[in-house]
C-alpha cells in the first residue's frame, strides 16, 4: 500500500518498520513530527526529553541495552547533543542507534543556518541524506543496518524541504527484533583514556571501511544523461532541483551517503564528464572534499552558501531561460508572524517595554516580542542563553544594569537549558531578575508537552516540575507568580524585584491561548462615543485591534479577540468594553 507522507512521517514509519523500540527527542522545527508520528506506534516507546543531550543519551542507553533506538532534533539541537555524539563515535553501539537531524536552510524557523554535515565529519560518523519521503523511509532502515554492521551511531540528515514535503511511500511490515543479551563490556563502553585510546584507531579504520562501502553502495549512484558535457554531484533536495531543471541532459552522481565520501566513485565520475559541478545547499562540504582529491569542480563560486535553492537557481546558473512572470504594481506590505490575540506573553512584554527595561530573550514564541510596537527584546542567542547572559550582563554593568535588566525564558526552554543558568545566578550571588514565561506548553513548535505541563507525549498524566520549588531549591529566595493578564500586578512585581539587590524569579503564568482547554471569553468592543483615537491600545501590537480608516478610532475584530482584557486596562477613557455595543 502507498501513502502520501511527510518526510518526517516517513522517518517515523521507517523507525516502526526497522523494529526500533526507544525514541527520545526534544521538539524543534523542522524535526518535531518525526517523534510525534513515532509516538502513534504502540510498539515504539517515545518520549519528550528536556533537551537534545538528554535525548541522545537516552538513545545511547537503549542501544547499550541492545535495542534499536533513535533521537531527533533540529540542527541547533545537535550542538546540544554534540557532547555525547563525539564519544558515541568511539563506543559504537549495541542495538542500532540513529540520530535524525533537520537543517533549516533559509531559516524558516531557526536562529541560524548551520550545516550539520560538519558534525558527521568532525565526529567521524556516517551520515545519510535522503531526497524525498520514500527515500527517507528506506534510509532509516539502511541506517540501522549500517549502525550495527559498522558499530557506529549513524546520522540521517533532513532539511525543511524533505521533512515538510509529502510524496507517496510504500508501507511495509515491521521487523520484530529481540533485544540483544546484555553483557558488560568496559573496554568498549567506559571511555576513560586507557580504553578510549584503543577505540580511536577503530574509529579511523571504521571510516575507511565506510568509505569503501560507499564506493559500491546502491545509494551512491551515477545517472548517465544524454550528454557527458556536464556532470553534477549532489544529494538530498538539490538532486530534485537538478532533475527538475535539467532533466536527463546532464549526468548526475547522486550521493545518499554524504559522509564519508567515496573517493574512487567521485574520481570515476569526474573522469567521465567534461565539466564537473557540485551543487549543495549551505556550505561547500562536498566541494571541499572533491577539491582535496585534486579534481577541478565548480560549486560555491556560482552557488550561494545562503538560503535554499530551487529549480530556478539551477536554471539561472546554467543560463537557461526562466518562465515569464508578472507582479502587481501596488506595494505589497509584508506579513510577519505575530504574537496571537490573547497571547499571555503580551502583557508582560508591554510592561517591560513601557518601563524601558533591557530584556535578554530566549528561543520560543516570545521571540516575537522583539517586533514593533512592543520591541521588547535586546538579544536572542540560543536555548537558555537569556538566563546565563543576564548574569554576565549584570556582573559587567553592576548595580545600574541590575536595576534595569531582566531575562525572559519560556517554561520548556527553561527546562531545556535555563536551570543551569539559574543555578549560576544563585551560586554566584547575582542580583538578577529572571522572568519565566510559563504558558504551560512548548508553544512555537506546535504544542508539545514538557516536564512542567503534567502530561507526557501520549497525553497521559505525568510528574510535573514545580517551578517555584525548583527555583527555591537552587537557592533563589525571592520567587513570585503573576498573571500576565493583570498589568498592574506585572508592573509591581517587575519594579519591586528590580529594586531588590538579590536574585529573583518572576513566574508569569497563564496557559497558551491556543490550547484546546483554554476557552476564549467574549470579544471586547470599542465604544465609539468614548474613544478619542489616542492609540494607547495600539501599543500592545494585538492583531485584533486596529484603527478605523474613517473615524480614526480603535476597533476590535471580534473574530480574533479572545477577551483577554489587557487592552481594557490600558484605555484611560473606558472606551473598551465587554460585549456587543
Amino acid at each position, binding site marked *: 500500500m*502507498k501513502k*502520501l507522507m511527510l518526510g518526517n512521517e516517513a522517518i517515523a514509519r521507517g523507525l516502526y518498520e526497522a523494529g526500533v523500540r526507544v525514541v527520545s527527542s526534544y521538539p524543534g*522545527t*523542522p524535526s*518535531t*513530527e518525526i517523534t510525534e508520528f513515532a509516538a502513534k506506534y504502540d510498539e515504539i516507546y517515545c518520549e519528550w526529553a528536556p533537551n537534545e543531550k538528554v535525548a541522545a543519551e537516552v538513545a545511547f542507553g537503549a542501544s547499550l541495552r541492545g535495542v534499536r533506538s533513535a533521537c531527533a532534533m533540529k540542527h541547533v539541537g545537535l550542538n546540544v547533543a554534540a557532547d555525547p555524539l563525539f564519544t558515541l563515535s568511539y563506543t559504537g553501539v549495541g542495538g542500532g542507534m540513529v540520530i535524525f537531524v533537520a537543517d533549516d536552510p533559509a531559516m*524558516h*524557523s531557526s536562529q541560524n543556518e548551520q550545516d550539520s554535515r560538519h558534525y558527521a565529519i568532525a565526529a567521524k560518523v556516517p551520515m545519510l541524506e535522503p531526497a*524525498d519521503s520514500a527515500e527517507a523511509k528506506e534510509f532509516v532502515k539502511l541506517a540501522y543496518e549500517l549502525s550495527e554492521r559498522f558499530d557506529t551511531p549513524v546520522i540521517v540528515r533532513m532539511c*525543511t*524541504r524533505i521533512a*515538510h*514535503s*509529502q*510524496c*507517496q511511500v510504500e508501507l511495509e511490515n515491521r521487523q520484530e527484533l529481540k533485544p540483544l543479551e546484555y553483557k558488560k563490556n568496559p573496554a568498549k563502553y567506559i571511555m576513560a583514556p586507557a580504553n578510549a585510546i584503543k577505540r580511536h584507531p577503530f574509529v579511523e579504520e571504521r571510516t575507511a571501511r565506510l568509505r569503501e562501502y560507499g564506493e559500491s553502495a546502491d545509494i551512491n549512484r551515477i545517472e548517465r544523461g544524454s550528454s557527458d558535457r556536464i556532470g553534477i554531484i549532489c544529494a538530498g*533536495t538539490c*538532486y*530534485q*532541483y537538478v*532533475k*527538475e*531543471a535539467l532533466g536527463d541532459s546532464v549526468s548526475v552522481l547522486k550521493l545518499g551517503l554524504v559522509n564519508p565520501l567515496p573517493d574512487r566513485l567521485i574520481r570515476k565520475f569526474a573522469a567521465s564528464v567534461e565539466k564537473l559541478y557540485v551543487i549543495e545547499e549551505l556550505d561547500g562540504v562536498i566541494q571541499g572534499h572533491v577539491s582535496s582529491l585534486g579534481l577541478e569542480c565548480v560549486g560555491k563560486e556560482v552557488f550561494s552558501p545562503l538560503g*535554499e535553492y*530551487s*529549480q*530556478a537557481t539551477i536554471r539561472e546558473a546554467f543560463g537557461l531561460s*526562466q*518562465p*515569464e*512572470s*508578472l*507582479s*502587481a*504594481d*501596488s*506595494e*505589497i*506590505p*509584508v*506579513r*510577519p*508572524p*505575530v*504574537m*496571537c490575540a490573547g497571547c499571555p506573553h503580551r502583557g508582560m512584554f508591554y510592561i517591560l517595554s513601557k518601563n524601558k527595561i533591557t530584556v535578554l530573550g530566549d528561543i520560543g*514564541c516570545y521571540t*516575537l516580542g522583539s*517586533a*514593533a510596537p512592543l520591541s521588547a527584546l535586546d538579544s536572542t542567542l540560543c536555548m537558555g542563553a537569556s538566563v546565563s547572559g543576564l548574569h554576565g550582563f549584570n556582573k559587567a554593568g553592576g548595580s545600574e544594569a541590575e536595576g534595569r535588566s531582566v531575562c525572559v525564558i519560556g517554561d520548556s526552554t527553561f527546562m531545556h537549558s535555563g536551570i543551569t543558568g539559574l543555578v549560576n545566578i544563585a551560586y554566584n550571588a547575582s542580583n538578577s531578575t529572571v522572568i519565566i514565561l510559563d504558558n504551560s506548553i512548548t508553544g*512555537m*513548535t*506546535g504544542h508539545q508537552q514538557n516536564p512542567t505541563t503534567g502530561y507526557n507525549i501520549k497525553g497521559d498524566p505525568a510528574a510535573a516540575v514545580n517551578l517555584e520549588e525548583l527555583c527555591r531549591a537552587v537557592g533563589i529566595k525571592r520567587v513570585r507568580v503573576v498573571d500576565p493578564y493583570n498589568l498592574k500586578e506585572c508592573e509591581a512585581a517587575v519594579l519591586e524585584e528590580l529594586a531588590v539587590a538579590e536574585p529573583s524569579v518572576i513566574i508569569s503564568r497563564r496557559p497558551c491561548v491556543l490550547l484546546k482547554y483554554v476557552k476564549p471569553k467574549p470579544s471586547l468592543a470599542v465604544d465609539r462615543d468614548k474613544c478619542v483615537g489616542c492609540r494607547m491600545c*495600539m501599543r500592545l*501590537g494585538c*492583531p485584533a*485591534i*486596529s*484603527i478605523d480608516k474613517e473615524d480614526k478610532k480603535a476597533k476590535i475584530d471580534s*473574530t480574533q479577540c479572545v477577551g483577554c482584557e489587557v487592552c481594557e486596562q490600558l484605555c484611560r477613557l473606558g472606551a473598551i468594553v465587554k460585549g456587543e455595543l
Partner: protein
Amino acid sequence: MQTVNVMIVGVGGQGSILASKLLGTVLVDCGYQVKVSEVHGMSQRGGSVVTYVRFGDAVYSPVITKGEADYIVSFEKLEAARHAPCLKKGGRIISSSQRIDPMPVITGAAEYPDGVLEELRSKGVLVDELDALELARSAGSAKSVNIVLMGRLARYFDIPMEKWLAAIEKCVKPQFAEVNKKAFMLGCDG
C-alpha cells in the same frame, strides 16, 4: 503529461494544511505522482504561509518558483497578490475576497492595496474571486473556507465529483464530513 502546479497561500492558522491534504489525497486517488510541500513552525503565527502541490507523471522538485504556478488558491487577497509572480502566463488566481490586515497595516506603517486583484486582472491575469468565508458560513462552519476554495479549484479540474467527496471523507473526522461536503459543493457551484 506536463506537471501541474498549485499554490495554496494564506495567513497562518487559516487551514491551508487541510486544503493541501484534501488536494493531495484526491490526486493520489487519481493515480498521479504527487508532491506537497509546506512550512511549519514560526510562520504559523499569523504570518504569510505557502503550500505547494505538484502533480503529474514524474515530479522532482517539491517547490514552485516564479512563473510556474498553474493555479494560486488564496485565502486572502493580499496573499494572492504577494504570490502572483509565481503564476504562469495564462495561470489562474482563485481568491477569497477576505481581507486580513498584516501588522504593518494595523500599525499604520503600510497601506493595504485594496484594488490589487482588479489590478492583476487588468494585466491579463485570470482572477476568480469568491466570498469563501460567506459560503463556508452558509455551509454551517466558518472554518471550512479551505474546503470551499478546493471546491472552486475543482471546477477547473477534470476529476469526478465522487472522488472529491470520497477524499473529503478520508481527510476529515466523520462528524465534520457533511458540513465539509456541503462547503465543497457551494465552492464548486456557488
